[in-house]
């Protein structure tokens, strides 16, 4: 395993999680980004929302036992990570990471907050949530990003959304889906494989 300087090691090959990712890995609250631990109080910063949807495969059937991992900035657009120059200002009560799995209907659900926007070296990032999707037969993580329709001006300027052809951008907008327990609900449907106008756009990992 020894390597000369400037002779990098090669990252390991990805493999699928297969059909049997353990249900026992999931704890209560894993899909709740608003808490840093299951017993911690939720963050007081930001608007709490429900983000849910179905993961479907080619033909429209459900993708069962898929794993979705979410990562996002806090309400003011900060990450608790040293590579964020503003990390000292990040909300200490916000985890920003969550994991959900899909049931027999392919349904998943997260509880989180609307993330803040921030200025990145690549351009102004609109409020967004990165999703990584794992599942049986998915050999490498599928990466997509959720944007919000109420931030239309910010979305227009977002440097990541901009790499998509204009006609595909609406596929990455979460759809307002009513209210539950006083929280706004957003729906983000995922189609892993389908016709070009309906297949979810994914980004190179």
């Amino acid at each position, binding site marked *: 395993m020894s390597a000369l300087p400037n002779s990098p090691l090669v990252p390991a090959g990805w493999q699928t999680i297969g059909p049997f990712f353990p249900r026992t890995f999931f704890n209560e609250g894993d899909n709740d980004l608003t808490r840093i631990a299951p017993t*911690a109080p939720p963050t007081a910063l930001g608007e709490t929302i429900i983000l849910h949807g179905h993961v479907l495969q080619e033909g429209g059937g459900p993708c069962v036992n898929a794993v979705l991992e979410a990562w996002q900035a806090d309400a003011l657009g900060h990450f608790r990570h040293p590579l964020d120059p503003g990390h000292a200002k990040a909300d200490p009560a916000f985890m*920003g990471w969550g994991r959900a799995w899909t049931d027999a209907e392919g349904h998943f659900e997260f509880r989180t907050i609307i993330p803040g926007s921030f200025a990145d070296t690549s351009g102004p990032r609109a409020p967004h949530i990165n999703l990584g999707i794992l599942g049986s037969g998915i050999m490498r993580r599928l990466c997509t990003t959720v944007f919000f329709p109420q931030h239309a001006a910010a979305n227009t300027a977002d440097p990541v959304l901009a790499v998509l052809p204009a006609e595909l951008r609406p596929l990455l907008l979460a759809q307002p889906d009513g209210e539950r327990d006083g929280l706004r609900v957003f729906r983000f449907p995922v189609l892993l494989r389908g016709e070009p106008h309906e297949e979810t756009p994914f980004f190179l990992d």
Partner: protein
Amino acid sequence: MPDALPDLFAPYDEHTQPQVPIQHYAGTYTRNPRRPPFRRPVTRTELTGPLDLSAKLHPGDINLAETNGKPAQGQLIYVTGRILDEDSRPVAGALVEMWQANAAGRYFNPLDQRDAPLDPNFIGNGRCQTDATGRYGFFTIKPGAYPVPNSNKWWRPPHIHFSILGPSSLSRLVTQMYFPGDPLNAVDLLLLSIADREAQQRLISSHIPTQQIEGEWLGFQHNMVVRGRHATPPL
């Protein structure tokens, strides 16, 4: 302040990564997009990742070989290795999750409906956090091989599933570890989905000489490299 975190992430070399679809694996046909992925700029969201995940994903399940003090069936093994980045630097504090079939090749997961015995003393999943040298370790039993349904006799070789989180969103890795010398390795369709032969071989663990292991465990060594370099290389 830890060592400088990786901040340089080049795309994977396609030859070292699995290509789809894979014959006899229906999900690889229906669950992978037709459209090639879009290349995006690497922004702060991709560079960062949760560094305090252990508050949520609790480490500490490192002995899978017994449940409630009762021993699992099978050959006792100890699997250990280091998580390194592309600059050969140890990844300290990474969360390492693993899951596997029992000695008869059956998963505890209720979705595994194969007609092979379940072992009441074997659940088969573990989670730990790497130490300052990037090392992880699990005490477990050697998983059995199992046939893939409707596959014209494709048997998965004994393998352990691994999931590694940290320190960046882009250093996420999900992979499988195989055992040295198993004849099923050379014909496994998942291993063969990686074109580069050396990359295939890197997913196969190596024996640790028996004299180097305390207790009655057969040792297997398996390092895993996650993506990420530091823009200013070490001197």
